[in-house]
């Protein structure tokens, strides 16, 4: 796992959080406070579908497979997904992220078998 956070001079997202080896077993705390998301990108070079799951509104680490995510984004094998939010999407308290292989919805605790990366552009 390698989480890199960089300040950028773009008013529609002053920070970028980038995970180069996303996992289900490691939940990244993207932000510790309230903020706004402007863009999400997922790249799945593996051979199995994965799901980026986001949780917000809690200062406690969510339990992957048990706590219902607030957002779920599927990324098929060998594909990338880019989601732009022109008006921003607000979150409260904190923002957490994990990537689960094979299972959408709430369940699923399997780490991706291939390399999955994601980046989230946000303002806090």
């Amino acid at each position, binding site marked *: 796992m390698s989480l890199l956070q960089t300040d950028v001079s773009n008013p529609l997202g002053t920070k970028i959080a980038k995970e180069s080896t996303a996992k289900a077993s490691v939940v990244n705390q993207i932000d510790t406070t309230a903020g706004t998301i402007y863009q999400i990108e997922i790249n799945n070079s593996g051979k199995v579908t994965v*799901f980026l799951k986001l949780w*917000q509104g809690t200062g406690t680490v969510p339990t992957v497979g048990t706590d*219902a*995510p*607030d*957002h*779920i*984004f*599927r990324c*098929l094998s060998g*594909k*990338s*997904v*880019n*989601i*732009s*939010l*022109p*008006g921003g*999407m*607000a979150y409260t308290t904190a923002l957490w992220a994990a990537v689960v292989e094979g*299972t*959408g*919805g*709430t*369940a699923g605790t399997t780490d991706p078998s291939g390399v999955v990366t994601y980046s989230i552009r946000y303002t806090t």
Partner: protein
Amino acid sequence: MDSLTGVLRCSGVVYDVFRGVIVALSVATNSGFSYKMAYDTDLEADAKVNIFGSGVELHLLDVDNAANGGQVVYVKLYDSSNTVTVGQTAPDYQFRIGGGERLMFVLPGGVSFAGGLTMNCSTTAGTSGDITTDPTNGVIVNLVAK
């Protein structure tokens, strides 16, 4: 419609709206270009199945939850041409919309719903959700796909 925009097929729904008839879901296709549009004035917990009638690539989702000032809702999308079991079928995509919010999700490269796009709106996040528990007021959803 005429030759300016090709033949607009929307099963008379816009016609009905102009006359004040509220219909929940309308789908429009246009022979002049490849995009399809769907408009739901009141997406509820019960799923709308395969709304475009075939596999599509979704490019835009616009959800207006302005009518529910204090109620968070979750729009859930399923890659399925069949009825999903609300509360048991895991959504492939889920979007949280805060109370009173309107959010637009733009997907420049599109995301595939090869089996068909099925959707519902719940007050419960994740796979859970009661088919009989609708948002208090109408949640408006616009989709653009091809």
